């Protein structure tokens, strides 16, 4: 067999923050930046949930617990690389260059035109697993152009049951596309546990089945995720084809603000994973390395909270979405039908 099954879970930091593997060679400012994004993700998610509870935005899917996987998987990417994920990958998108405000706008019901095109992210996916095929198509385009660029395609454990996920792995394998698949296995697809998605021990075992290596990584260990994805990105960039990575993590919050996990999740499990929270783990490591101290950490939290406050103010100060503009987003040019329907709406609104 060209690609052996993954037998161990790659880990650099133990849950208590102690170094148990070789740390990646990252300068202090990058380690701090990683931590900053992780804290930002947690606080952003909490703020968005609070806004939803106050009726100020629509349904939101918190990302709490997945900050290490989210940041680690995006960190190895260069500007020309693409990152394609679903609504759980908001923090990865921010790391890649999509503005947090643009993402918040979509949750306030605006069309998603705030994405920076040069961030190279597709609109976060709603119909799960479909995005992984788009990611493969982008990678096939890069390959066709002879570019040294790569794609990271991300989905959750639930999405791996979809046909599109398996078709994506298959196309990537057959065409040797420069792509890294990352599955954020957070244990739950809304209320359905991972063991009801697949009888396999690991999702990563599907890698060898599709002719590519499959790795399992501790998804709550940002350094381990970074390392595994970085290696896979290097392989893809060198023309050595795709890799499947399964990041074992946990959704500490609800699926979305419309979900109540108390209905299906055991307290024991939540407690067990709270003890493996990626944030304190990395914080302890940074403090042990003298890269962070409690005062600096407090200042960081305050700075981010202020940043989020200003983001919310900007978000809420925006004029409402102009319904008339939407008619221009269906085709490059409005069809005669859309022209008439737009005129009808404007007349009804007394605007023409």
């Amino acid at each position: 067999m060209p690609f052996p099954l993954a037998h161990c879970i790659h880990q650099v930091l133990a849950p208590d923050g102690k170094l148990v593997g070789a740390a990646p060679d990252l300068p202090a400012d990058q380690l701090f930046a990683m931590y900053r994004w992780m804290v930002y993700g947690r606080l952003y998610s909490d703020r968005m949930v609070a806004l939803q509870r106050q009726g100020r935005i629509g349904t939101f899917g918190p990302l709490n617990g997945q900050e290490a996987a989210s940041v680690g998987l995006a960190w190895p990417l260069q500007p020309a690389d693409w990152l394609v994920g679903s609504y759980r990958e908001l923090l990865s998108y921010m790391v890649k260059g999509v503005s947090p405000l643009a993402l918040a706008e979509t949750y306030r019901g605006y069309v998603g035109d705030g994405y920076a095109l040069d961030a190279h992210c597709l609109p976060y996916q709603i119909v799960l697993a479909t995005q992984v095929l788009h990611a493969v198509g982008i990678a096939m385009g890069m390959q066709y152009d002879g570019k040294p660029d790569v794609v990271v395609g991300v989905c959750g454990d639930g999405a791996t049951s979809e046909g599109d996920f398996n078709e994506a792995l298959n196309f990537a394998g057959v065409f040797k596309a420069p792509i890294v698949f990352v599955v954020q296995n957070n244990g739950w697809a809304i209320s359905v546990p991972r063991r009801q998605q697949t009888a396999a021990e690991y999702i990563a075992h599907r890698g060898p089945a599709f002719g590519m290596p499959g790795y399992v990584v501790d998804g709550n260990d940002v350094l381990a995720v970074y390392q595994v994805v970085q290696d896979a990105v290097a392989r893809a960039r060198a023309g050595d084809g795709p890799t499947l990575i399964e990041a074992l993590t946990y959704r500490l919050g609800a699926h979305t603000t419309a979900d109540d996990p108390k209905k299906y999740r055991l307290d024991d499990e939540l407690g067990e994973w709270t003890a493996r929270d990626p944030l304190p783990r990395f914080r302890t490591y940074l403090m042990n390395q003298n890269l962070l101290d409690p005062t600096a950490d407090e200042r960081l939290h305050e700075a981010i909270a202020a940043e989020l406050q200003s983001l919310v103010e900007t978000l809420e100060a925006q004029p409402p979405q102009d319904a008339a503009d939407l008619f221009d987003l269906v085709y490059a040019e409005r069809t005669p039908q859309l022209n008439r329907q737009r005129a009808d709406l404007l007349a009804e609104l007394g605007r023409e």
Partner: protein
Amino acid sequence: MPRMTLVEAVNHALAQELERDRRVRVFGEDVGKNGGVFRVTDGLQARFGEDRVFDTPLAESGIIGTAVGMAVYGLRPVAEIQFAGFTFVAFNQIVSQAARLRYRSGGLLSVPLVIRAPFGGGVRTPELHSDSVEALFMHAQGIKVVIPSSPYDAKGLLHAAVEDPDPVLFLEHMKLYRSFRQEVPSERYTLPLGQAAVAREGDAVSVFAYGAMLHVALQAAEQVAQEDGASVEVVDLRTISPLDEECIAQSVSKTGRAVVVHEAARAGGVGAEVIAVINERCLYSLLKPVERVTNPDMPFPLPSVEDTFLPNPARVAAAIRRTLEP
């Protein structure tokens, strides 16, 4: 000017697109060495290489999903679905993704993708190979649906489809692939998407059809004209989404009578939309109720009964005559 079948015209158009623009890539099941199960892509891989024209795994959703990615990246994919009946497997990728990405991205991204698929009855295919699925995609937003009825139109419309910045579903009727030849210019030309064409002028009744049914409509029109002396207009819709409402309204305003012919099932079909257009734009011109000649609302007919179910000239002629009754 060369005389081409519809297969040859499409092949010719694809070759010219591949020649003209390196961003164009043609792919699907069996389109490479085999040249497609209908030979539509015959010789293209040999001429343009495996990078430009290639076979994919047998997975329709995979074909369209990767095509969406390539299109977003900046290529001009021309993907083949071997039979339109198999688009069901790729429905999500076509409707919620390819067609919708412009909207989902607030207009930042577009999907210039052509999906070619053969369809249509009368050629004794196995089940689900002949299905007329066009109305399903007519109801989707953000995709255009084009159905040529002749080699000349097929070439001009396909060039326009590849040029179009939005996804286009290009449905090729299997019965027309080799049924007749027509003079087709060798040079590249485009026919505008969204425009119907008057295939036969008349002033007593308008018959609307597309694909192979255009020819059934033309035969019926000729029969009624010869036997009853009635002047029958036949309109080839050519693009069913967006429909050429102007052309429909103009024709019916002139004739006051209308028949719609399609081989897809009736409910929620193209005929229903044509009638709605007539209702909205020229109801008071109507002298008689509009007739629909279609397959019944049942799965597409199996080969042993397709001649019974598919609209034929006699059935269309009878419908035309009903509209002409005083």
